[in-house]
C-alpha cells in the first residue's frame, strides 16, 4: 500500500459529471418495468381494503374466466412455496414477531395486504380481472393509534396476546459508559434545570420516484429476479432461506433503480408473490405497482412518540438525558423495522458531553402498514429530539441556542471521544463547522432583524433554527451488528478485473440507486491505479456479476464499499509489482508506482499497469510460479462507524395571521471528511435537505380511525417540488475519518438528519415570545396558526383528518369530468 502513497491525486476531489446520468436522464436505460421477456405474463394484486379483517372466502371463478387470464392465485394455492417476509433484526430475544406471509392466508393485519393475485397476458387484463376476484371479509376492530396500541386494549394480532413487540434499553451506568441518569435527574429536580418534552415523529412515505417493479423468469437453470431494490444480495439470501430454492439457483438483478431512500431496503411481499406466481405458471411474470399501491404498500418511515428528560445545572451544563420511545412498527416487524429506532440509541446524546444517559425503546404492533428504514433511519428521529430539547435548554437558561451547544459539545481537541452511549467518535471539529456556518448565514444580522421585527410587532416574525448534528453511518462493523443480534454482517466486497486491453472493470457489492457510485468508484480507481477515469467501468447489482455484497443503505457505500475498492486496487498494484519487477528485470524494492507506471528508481526504465495487464493476458513472459493474473478482490469489514457532523442554520418567516411559514435562508456546513466528488456531495446535501425540510413542513401519512390511508395520493401527501425550495448555502469543513484509507465519511443521509430540527427550531423561535415552545410536525399553516391562537386564548381544537376529494368520480358528480368541457348530469 505504501507503493501508491505518493501518487498524484487528480480525480479524487474533482467535480466530475456523473457518467451514469446520460443513460438515466435520457431514458436509455432499462428500468425493471421496461424489461420484456418472450412469453412474459403480468400480475395484478388483489389487496385488502380493510386494515384488520379475516378473509372468510375468496371466489375466483369470474376472474379466472375473464379474458386473457392465465391463473388466479390465492394464499392457499402457494402456501407451501411462497416463503416469508423475514425480520432480520430481532432486537431482543423475546421480541414478539408476527409471521409475515407474502400473501395472507386468513388474517389481514393492515390495509393493502395481498389476498390474491391474477396472472394474465397483459397488465390491463390482469388489472381488470383483479376487480372480479370476490373476497369476503369479516372486519375486525383495527388498532391504529400508537399509544392506544401500547395499552393492549385492541390487538393487532389477537393470537399474539399483545401489541408490545420488544423493549430495548441502553443505560450508561449499567454498561459502564457513564453515570446514573436517575441520580442526575433527581439532582436537577432538587436544584438545577429539568426539561421534559414529548415529541412526535409523524409517519412518512419514502415516495421514491420509480415505483417498485419485479420481473421473475423461472425458465432457466437459475430463477432470475429483476427487481427495483436497494438490496439484491439480501433478497437472494432471503429467497433461498425462506422458499427452499437453493441459493445457487437464484440470480437477483437490480437494474438501474430510480431511488429508494430506504424504501427499497426491503424484501417485499410483491417480490415473493411474483416469484411464486412465475414458478406456478412456469413463465416469466412481471409485476409493477401503481403509485396508489406504492403509497400504501411500500413500507413507511418514522412514526414514534419520543419522550425526553434532560437534566442540567443552572448554567446550562447538561448532566443527564433519558429517552423513552414508543415506536409504531405497523402490522409486522419489517426486515430491520425493529432495529431502526435502536440505531438512535447512540445518537440522542449527539455531540454533547452528557455524563449520564439512558435510552428505552418500546416497539409496538398496530394495524397500519409496516415501518422500516427511511433516509436517516433512527438518526433523524434522535437528532430532531436532541436538537429540539437543546433549544429548550437555551430558552430556559436564557442564552442563544449556539451558546448552550458550545458549552456542552465535544471540543476538537477531545477526539477521539468515547460518548456516554459508548461510541467512539473518531474525528470532528464542531467549532470550525459552526463558525463557518454562522459566517455563511449572516447569523448576527438575522438575529438583529429578528429583534427588530419583534419590537415592531411585525405580523411576519422571523425565527432562527440551529442544528449542530452528528450521526453514525457506514453500516457497519460486523462484530457490533453481531452483538445486536442483526442477521448479517456489515462488510463490503469489491473486485477489480484488469482487462487485456488495459481497461478496468470494478465490481462492487454496493447497489446504487441514484447515488453515483459508477462515477465515484471510477474516480477512486483512476487515482489508485493511475488509469484514465474513462477506462474504468463499474459493475454492480447482479448477483451473477457481483456475487458478494451487502448492498446500499445507511450511508455505507463509500466508507465501506469504497474502502473495499481501494483495497482491491492496492492488491492489484501489489500483484502487478511482482510482474513489473520480472518484466523490468529489476528488484521489486527498487520500483516505485506513480501515475499508473512502475518505474525503476534512478532510471527511466518503467512499465505501465495496462501493459502488465496485457502481459498477464498473453503470459508469454510471466514470472514462473506466479499466477498469470493481476485481478484482485477485497472484502472490508469496518472497525468503526463513520461520524459526519455539521452545523445547519435555518431562518424561517412565520406569518402570524395565517400560520404560513416561508424559508428565508438555509446555510449548512457539513464535515464529511475527504470528498471524492464535490458535485455528488452537493447533490446529496441538497436532496437530503429537502427531504428533511419536507418532514418538518409538509409530509405526513394520515390514516383514519379504521386504518385507511387518507393521504393516499400526491394530492394529499404533499411532497415538495423545486418551486417550494430556496437556494441553499452549503460548504464543508474537513476532519478526516480514521476508519478508512481515504478519510471519507458518509453523506447520503446527513442533510435529512440535520435539517428537520433546524426548520422546526426556527419556526418555534419565531413565535417563542408568544409563549409557544413546540408545534407538531408537519408544521402546517393551520397547526402554526392554532398554536398562536392557543397561546393567546389557551384553547385547543384538534383538526380533523380527512381528505377533500379532487378526483371524485362517482354518481354524485354525474359525468362532470375532470379536465373536460361538458357532459351530462346524473
Amino acid at each position, binding site marked *: 500500500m505504501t507503493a501508491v502513497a505518493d501518487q498524484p491525486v487528480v480525480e479524487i476531489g474533482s467535480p466530475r459529471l456523473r457518467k451514469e446520468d446520460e443513460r438515466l436522464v435520457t431514458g436509455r436505460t432499462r428500468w425493471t418495468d421496461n424489461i420484456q421477456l418472450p412469453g412474459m405474463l403480468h400480475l395484478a394484486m388483489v389487496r385488502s381494503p380493510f386494515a384488520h379483517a379475516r378473509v372468510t372466502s375468496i371466489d375466483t371463478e369470474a376472474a379466472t374466466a375473464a379474458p386473457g387470464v392465465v391463473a388466479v392465485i390465492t394464499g392457499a394455492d402457494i402456501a407451501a412455496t411462497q416463503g416469508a417476509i423475514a425480520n432480520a433484526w430481532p432486537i431482543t430475544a423475546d421480541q414478539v414477531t408476527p409471521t409475515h406471509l407474502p400473501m395472507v392466508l386468513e388474517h389481514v393485519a393492515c390495509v393493502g395486504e395481498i389476498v390474491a393475485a391474477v396472472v394474465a397476458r397483459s*397488465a*390491463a387484463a390482469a*388489472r*381488470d380481472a383483479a*376487480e372480479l376476484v370476490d373476497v369476503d371479509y369479516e372486519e375486525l376492530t383495527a388498532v391504529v393509534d400508537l399509544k392506544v396500541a401500547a395499552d393492549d386494549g385492541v390487538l393487532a394480532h389477537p393470537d399474539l396476546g399483545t401489541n408490545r413487540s420488544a423493549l430495548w434499553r441502553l443505560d450508561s451506568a449499567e454498561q459502564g459508559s457513564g453515570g446514573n441518569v436517575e441520580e442526575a435527574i433527581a439532582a436537577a429536580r432538587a436544584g438545577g434545570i429539568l426539561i421534559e418534552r414529548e415529541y412526535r415523529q409523524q409517519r412518512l412515505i419514502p415516495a421514491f420516484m420509480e415505483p417498485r417493479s419485479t420481473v421473475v423468469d423461472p425458465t432457466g437453470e437459475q430463477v432470475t429476479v429483476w427487481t427495483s431494490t436497494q438490496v439484491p444480495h439480501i433478497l437472494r439470501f432471503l429467497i433461498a432461506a425462506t422458499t427452499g430454492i437453493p441459493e445457487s439457483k437464484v440470480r437477483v438483478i437490480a437494474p438501474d433503480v430510480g431511488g429508494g431512500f430506504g424504501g427499497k431496503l426491503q424484501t417485499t411481499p410483491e417480490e415473493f408473490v411474483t416469484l411464486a406466481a412465475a414458478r406456478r405458471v412456469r413463465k416469466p411474470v412481471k409485476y409493477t405497482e*401503481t*403509485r*396508489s399501491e406504492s403509497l400504501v404498500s411500500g413500507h413507511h418511515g418514522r412514526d414514534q412518540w419520543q419522550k425526553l428528560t434532560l437534566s442540567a445545572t443552572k448554567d446550562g451544563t447538561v448532566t443527564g438525558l433519558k429517552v423513552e420511545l414508543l415506536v409504531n412498527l405497523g402490522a409486522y416487524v419489517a426486515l430491520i423495522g425493529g432495529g431502526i429506532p435502536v440505531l438512535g440509541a447512540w445518537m440522542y446524546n449527539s455531540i454533547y458531553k452528557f455524563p449520564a444517559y439512558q435510552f428505552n425503546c418500546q416497539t409496538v404492533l398496530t394495524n397500519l402498514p409496516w415501518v422500516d428504514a427511511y433516509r436517516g433511519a433512527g438518526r433523524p428521529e434522535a437528532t430532531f429530539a436532541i436538537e429540539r430539547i437543546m433549544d429548550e435548554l437555551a430558552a430556559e437558561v436564557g442564552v442563544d441556542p449556539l451558546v448552550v451547544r458550545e458549552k456542552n459539545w465535544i471540543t476538537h481537541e477531545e477526539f477521539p471521544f468515547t460518548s456516554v452511549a459508548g461510541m467512539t467518535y473518531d474525528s470532528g471539529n464542531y467549532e470550525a463547522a459552526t463558525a463557518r456556518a454562522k459566517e455563511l448565514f449572516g447569523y448576527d444580522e438575522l438575529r438583529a432583524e429578528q429583534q427588530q421585527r419583534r419590537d415592531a410587532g411585525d405580523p411576519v416574525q422571523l425565527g432562527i433554527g440551529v442544528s449542530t448534528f452528528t450521526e453514525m453511518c457506514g453500516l457497519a462493523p460486523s462484530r457490533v451488528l453481531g452483538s445486536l443480534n442483526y442477521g448479517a454482517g456489515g462488510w463490503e466486497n469489491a473486485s477489480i478485473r484488469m482487462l487485456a486491453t488495459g481497461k478496468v472493470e470494478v465490481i462492487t457489492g454496493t447497489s446504487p440507486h441514484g447515488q453515483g457510485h459508477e462515477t465515484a468508484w471510477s474516480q477512486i480507481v483512476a487515482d489508485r491505479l493511475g488509469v484514465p477515469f474513462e477506462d474504468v467501468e463499474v459493475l454492480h447489482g447482479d448477483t451473477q456479476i457481483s456475487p458478494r455484497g451487502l448492498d446500499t443503505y445507511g450511508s455505507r457505500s463509500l466508507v465501506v464499499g469504497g474502502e473495499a475498492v481501494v483495497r482491491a486496487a492496492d492488491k492489484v498494484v501489489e500483484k502487478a509489482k511482482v510482474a513489473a519487477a520480472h518484466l523490468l528485470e529489476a528488484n521489486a524494492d527498487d520500483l516505485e508506482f506513480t501515475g499508473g507506471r512502475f518505474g525503476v528508481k534512478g532510471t527511466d526504465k518503467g512499465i505501465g499497469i495496462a501493459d502488465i495487464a496485457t502481459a498477464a493476458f498473453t503470459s508469454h513472459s510471466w514470472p514462473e510460479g506466479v499466477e498469470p493474473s493481476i485481478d484482485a478482490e477485497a472484502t472490508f469489514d469496518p472497525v468503526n462507524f463513520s461520524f459526519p457532523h455539521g452545523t445547519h442554520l435555518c431562518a424561517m418567516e412565520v406569518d402570524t*395571521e*395565517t400560520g*404560513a411559514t416561508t424559508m428565508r435562508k438555509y446555510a449548512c456546513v457539513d464535515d464529511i471528511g475527504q470528498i471524492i466528488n464535490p458535485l455528488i456531495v452537493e447533490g446529496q446535501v441538497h436532496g437530503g435537505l429537502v427531504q428533511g425540510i419536507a418532514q418538518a*413542513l*409538509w409530509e405526513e401519512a*394520515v390514516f383514519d380511525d379504521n386504518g385507511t390511508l*387518507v*393521504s393516499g*395520493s400526491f*394530492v*394529499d401527501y*404533499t*411532497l*415538495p*417540488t423545486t*418551486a*417550494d425550495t430556496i437556494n441553499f448555502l452549503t460548504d464543508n469543513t474537513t476532519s478526516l475519518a480514521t476508519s478508512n484509507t481515504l478519510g471519507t465519511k458518509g453523506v447520503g443521509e446527513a442533510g435529512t438528519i440535520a435539517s428537520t430540527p433546524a426548520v422546526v427550531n426556527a419556526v418555534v423561535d419565531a413565535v417563542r415570545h408568544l409563549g409557544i415552545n413546540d408545534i407538531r410536525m408537519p408544521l*402546517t*399553516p*393551520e397547526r402554526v*396558526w*392554532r398554536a398562536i391562537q392557543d397561546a393567546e386564548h389557551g384553547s385547543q*381544537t384538534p*383538526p*380533523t*383528518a*380527512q*381528505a*377533500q376529494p*379532487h*378526483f*371524485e*368520480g*362517482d354518481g*354524485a*358528480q*354525474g*359525468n*362532470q*369530468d*375532470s*379536465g*373536460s*368541457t*361538458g*357532459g*351530462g*348530469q*346524473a
Partner: protein
Amino acid sequence: MIPASFDYVAPTTLDEALAALAEHGDDAKVLGGGQSLLPVLRMRLNAPELVVDLGRIEELRGIRDNGDAIVIGAMTTYADLLADASVGEHLSLLHKAVAEVADEQIRHRGTVGGAVVHADPAGDVGPAVLALDAQMVIVGPSGRRTVAAADFFTGLFETAVGEGEVLVEIRLPKHTGWGAHYEKFVRVSHQWSIVAVAATVKSDGGTFTEAKVALANMGSTPLRAKATEAALMGQPATDDAVRAAAASAADGTNPPSDLNGDADYRRHLATVLTRRAVLAAARS
C-alpha cells in the same frame, strides 16, 4: 394505474361530439385537457363506456375580442390564455388566477373550460369567472343557451351543463383598467387552494366604486363574498377600511374541513386573504 377499457372518439366538429354524447348518455365522458379525467380513469374512480375527446374541434379553441367582452373557447389551454395579450389587458384577474393553476406542465395541457366544468371548489378558474360576471355558453341537443356564472356552479363538482351538453365558450365582460389580485393559499406550490380569493376593484380618487370578490374552497362551489363587496363600496382603499370590509368575507360560507384545515381556520383565512387580495388589487 391502468384505466378500465373504454371506447374513444375524437370528433372534429361540435355536432359530431354532441351526436356521440346524445347516443351514449351518461355512459359517455367528455375529455378536455385530461388533467382531471385521466387521474379519475386511471384510479378507476369512474369507468365510462365512451370518452369523447374535444381536442380536435378547432372551433372550441382560441380567444377573441368581441368589443365589450373577451370570448374564450372552452378548449383554450391555460398556457394559451396566459400568452394572450387581451386577457392580460382586459381581464387581469383571470390572467392572474390562471397563472396560479397547478404547474407549468398542467397549464400546457389543461383547459379553461375543463376546469370550470370539472367545478372543483378549490379550482382557480371558478372564482375568477364568477367575480368577472362571466356568461357561460352551453350547447346541447336543444340548442345553445347562456348561463350566468352565478348560476353555473350548482354544487360540488356540479354545473349547469346538463346531460348531452358541452360548454363551448366563456364570455367575460371587459374589466379594462380594474385592479386585480388573486391570493392563493397553499402549502406546496402545485397544490389545490386551501382557500383562495379573487378580487378585482375599481376606485375613484382612492375610494372604491366597484368591487368584486370571489372565494375558492369556501363551500361546495366558488362563492362571491357579497357582504365584503357591499361593505367596500364608497370606502377608502386604506388598510383599516379594507380590514373592516374583509371581516365579513366568510359570511354565509360553508367551507370544508380536511387535512389542510378545519372550517373555522378556512373562515379565518378567508378574511385575511380577502383583505390582502383587495388591497393588492387596489394597488395593482
